[in-house]
């Protein structure tokens, strides 16, 4: 009973200090949301990517057929596949806008160098993610391509996302620690 009350108080304090009673500097503006939008675009890519994972077959002979099956036979498969194909354009647009804002406003300076470093690494990884993904969907059926396709699939599905998750963790930790901005 005491534990239950303590847990409830802890949760209330946590919500109050982080959400309901939290105060932030005035004048962040709409462009300050670009980072959040980049995260949302990434989450959409992640969600649609998990869906595609169930149907895509990383085999040189069956890859194309699996994409066509997904687009034509799975309910809303075409929509999810197209969101996954169009999403990177919007995501990279958001990340670039976010970085240009940080660059021109000088927010990357001390003590926020690590924000920039982790963000720049995330942008490069996003470009790599797009590149590997585009090669997966545009794959040509040839004799020596099976190995390449499996390798690309593993890199696109696990290799890059794991590194991205690490950099994202670092980015968000640094944002929490040093804050998003100071009066400039």
């Amino acid at each position, binding site marked *: 009973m005491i534990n239950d009350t303590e847990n409830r108080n802890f949760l209330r304090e946590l919500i109050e200090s982080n*959400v*309901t*009673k*939290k*105060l*932030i*500097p*005035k004048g*962040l503006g*709409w462009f*300050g*949301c670009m980072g*959040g*939008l980049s995260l*949302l*675009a990434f989450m*959409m890519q992640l969600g649609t990517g998990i869906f595609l994972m169930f149907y895509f077959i990383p085999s040189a002979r069956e890859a*194309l057929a699996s994409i066509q099956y997904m687009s034509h036979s799975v309910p809303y498969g075409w*929509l999810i596949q*197209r*969101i996954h*194909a*169009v*999403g*990177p*354009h*919007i995501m990279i*647009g958001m990340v*670039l806008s976010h970085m240009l804002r940080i*660059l*021109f*406003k*000088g927010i*990357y*300076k*001390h*003590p*926020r*160098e690590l924000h*920039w*470093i982790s963000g*720049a*690494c995330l942008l*490069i990884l996003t*470009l790599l993610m*797009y*590149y590997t993904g*585009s*090669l997966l*969907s*545009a*794959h*040509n059926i040839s004799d020596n391509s099976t190995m390449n396709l499996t390798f690309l699939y593993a890199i696109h599905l696990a290799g890059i996302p794991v590194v991205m998750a690490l950099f994202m963790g670092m980015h968000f930790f640094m944002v*929490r*620690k*040093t*804050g998003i901005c*100071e*009066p*400039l």
Partner: protein
Amino acid sequence: MKDYTKGKTPEMLEPFFPNEIFRHIIVSCFLIIVELIAVILFPLPVKLINKPDHIPWFLLPIYNLDKLIQNKTLFISLLVLCALLFISWPLLVNGKKYYLLSPNKEQVSNHNRVMYIKERPNLWQRPIPFMIVIVVIISVITLCFTTT
């Protein structure tokens, strides 16, 4: 966790909830609408070939650079160098003023540290980094429209 209330009057602050939360919800809805419109309007490449025939706008400079530089090793080295410079940008331009104020790091007073942090100017107030950024942006845009 960063405390934004330190050294600020209540007039300089606003509540995170609902102000910032609502701002994020509105722009998130906007993003979803833009994405759905793009899904309807953007054509997917028809031919599935090894190299995508539709090069996306954000990879155009790299693609054109690849066509301009015939040597693969040089091209990859150049890309890695650009990536390293891009990542380490804050370390390259940061702290100059800090050291100018006092060449000996140990002698930097707390006052100078505070002044440096408060005096963080926008990029256009610093001519050399600003020039570098503008030249790089113009070069990248030029590369996008280069036909080889």
